[in-house]
């Protein structure tokens, strides 16, 4: 077995074992993303009473898609990294011949796979309660959804891990994340579909990374985006991803030079 596969298997195995150790916690994490269902109720009522860019049934499907996207793209690397830095856990990891980022990546993948059955159960339960919202995406739609869902996870992970580099300077970089989290929720389309935003405002924020973290993959799952929009989204996400990764590597190197290995 190649070294790469050996490492992927080893990291996945230990992280999956860790994730399944606390089953109740895993279920609670999945439930904690139920903001989508709350907002679904609010916007459903609103669209029933007035005219919006989406019908009430489209709103229901949109927020269900948002729930699915968030199940796939939740990122917690900043808290994990901050804990490593503040509690001195980063030191032994730095002394192993593999970049620490891969531990975090595999932790997220393992968490996602461990959570998957429960997420599927929640979606099935939703359809059982509200069958009017039932829809079956075409295979090509599903393929594009997993592509953009995966891309959204990569971009969200890269952004949050880059903010996490602030731990080398402030040690409480998660407070920066709390500020960007508001932008993520609002401009990402978690609070309201961007279709409800004024067109000129939406045009501007479509150049930011946020819409591609929730709103766009949700729209892809609903099958309401054109090929041109797919191409544009791929280009913008790639640009942001490259820029963020470059910033991340620069900050990582600068941070390591400042790192005092405190508590270790």
């Amino acid at each position, binding site marked *: 077995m190649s070294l790469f596969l050996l490492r992927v298997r080893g990291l996945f195995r*230990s992280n999956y074992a860790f994730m399944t150790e606390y089953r109740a916690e895993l279920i609670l994490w999945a439930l904690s993303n139920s903001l989508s269902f709350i907002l679904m109720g609010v916007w459903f009522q609103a669209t029933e009473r007035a005219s919006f860019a989406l019908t009430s049934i489209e709103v229901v499907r949109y927020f269900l898609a948002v729930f699915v996207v968030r199940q796939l793209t939740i990122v917690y690397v900043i808290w994990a990294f901050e804990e490593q830095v503040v509690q001195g856990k980063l030191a032994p990891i*730095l002394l192993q*011949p593999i970049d620490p980022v891969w531990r975090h990546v595999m932790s997220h993948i393992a968490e996602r796979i461990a959570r998957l059955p429960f997420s599927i159960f929640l979606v099935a339960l939703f359809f059982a309660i509200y069958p009017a919202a039932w829809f079956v995406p075409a295979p090509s739609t599903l393929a594009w959804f997993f592509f953009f869902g995966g891309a959204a996870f990569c971009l969200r992970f890269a952004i949050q891990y880059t903010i996490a580099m602030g731990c080398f300077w402030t040690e409480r970089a998660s407070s920066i994340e709390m500020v960007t989290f508001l932008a993520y929720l609002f401009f990402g389309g978690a609070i309201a579909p961007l279709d409800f935003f004024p067109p000129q405002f939406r045009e501007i924020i479509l150049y930011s990374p946020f819409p591609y973290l929730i709103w766009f993959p949700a729209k892809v799952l609903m099958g309401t985006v054109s090929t041109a929009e797919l191409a544009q989204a791929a280009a913008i996400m790639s640009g942001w991803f490259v820029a963020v990764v470059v910033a991340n590597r620069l900050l990582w190197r600068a941070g390591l030079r400042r790192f*005092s290995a405190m508590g270790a």
Partner: protein
Amino acid sequence: MPIIQAGKLSRSFKVPVRKDGVGGSLRHFFDRQYKHTDAVKDVSFDIESGERVGFLGQNGAGKTTTLKMLSGLLLPTGGEAVVCGFTPFDKKPAFLAQIALVMGNKQQLLWDLPAKDTFQLNAAIYGIDDVEMRRRVDELSGMLEVSALLDQPVRKLSLGERMKCELLASLLHRPKVLFLDEPTLGLDVNAQVAVREFLKRYNEATGATILLTSHYMADITALCSRVLVIHEGQLVFDGDLSDLTARFQPKKEIQIKLDRPVTDVDVALVVAGQGVHHTKTEGRVAHFVVEPAVLRETLTRILARLDPKDLSVQDPPIEELIGRAIRGDHGAERAAKNPRSSSSEPA
């Protein structure tokens, strides 16, 4: 060529300073004040492959900071380090595959999982296949006597058992250089002895180089023939443990026990000659410090004149010698200026 080379290694830190009280907190919020601390100053030494070296000093003396620079965790602010032919801070994979740093107060074991999960993870990271990993785990767990514990979650293990598993996890990739920072911290006496014996056997079996810090002098005397003493970031002694004894305490301690309370007359009889000093009397027991040159005649005099019930001759505690080295007694300054070359000279 030495496997570890430290040349004028230095590291300073910027530390925030805050005054007490609400006013101090407010001022700290708006106007941060810092002070610079030199944790390590111009430390130089070489260590040859296979050596077991003890690194001694008080809390905050700079031991751990030096280990962190040598292992690549910290960037030196001055001087240079070369370990296994690499600059540690570059953290080249080929370098990291040859070293391990074990900290008594920190662990790399996955807390919620059995220790074997950490071993599997480490094996994967270092590119050790399953068959070889099992062979090494069997071998090391046998030496450390932890074979029966590997399936239990780490959080259920005792401190001593955890440290043994920690050592196993750190040695799985067979490092050529092992940095140990207080590996027996908090362990009971039996666990300390087990860890010491394991490290000694591991060194003898593999030829690995060991640089060890410890507050337990028994660790140093059991494991290391050579010691480095650091004080306020500066190296004050580098030499054999026996040289440390010769340099800082050439005297012996004599303890006598009589079958009656010790009197001033008894004490006067013992200190009658040159080079004998009375240190204390506790009922029937009296303590003296004696120059080696007059040891024989002093013992003869005690045996002939006092007929002691018990008599012992001891070297002073090693802690005391370290203290003297740190305080600069008996030529420590000279040792600091030219540590290695002057270390064998008698004081």
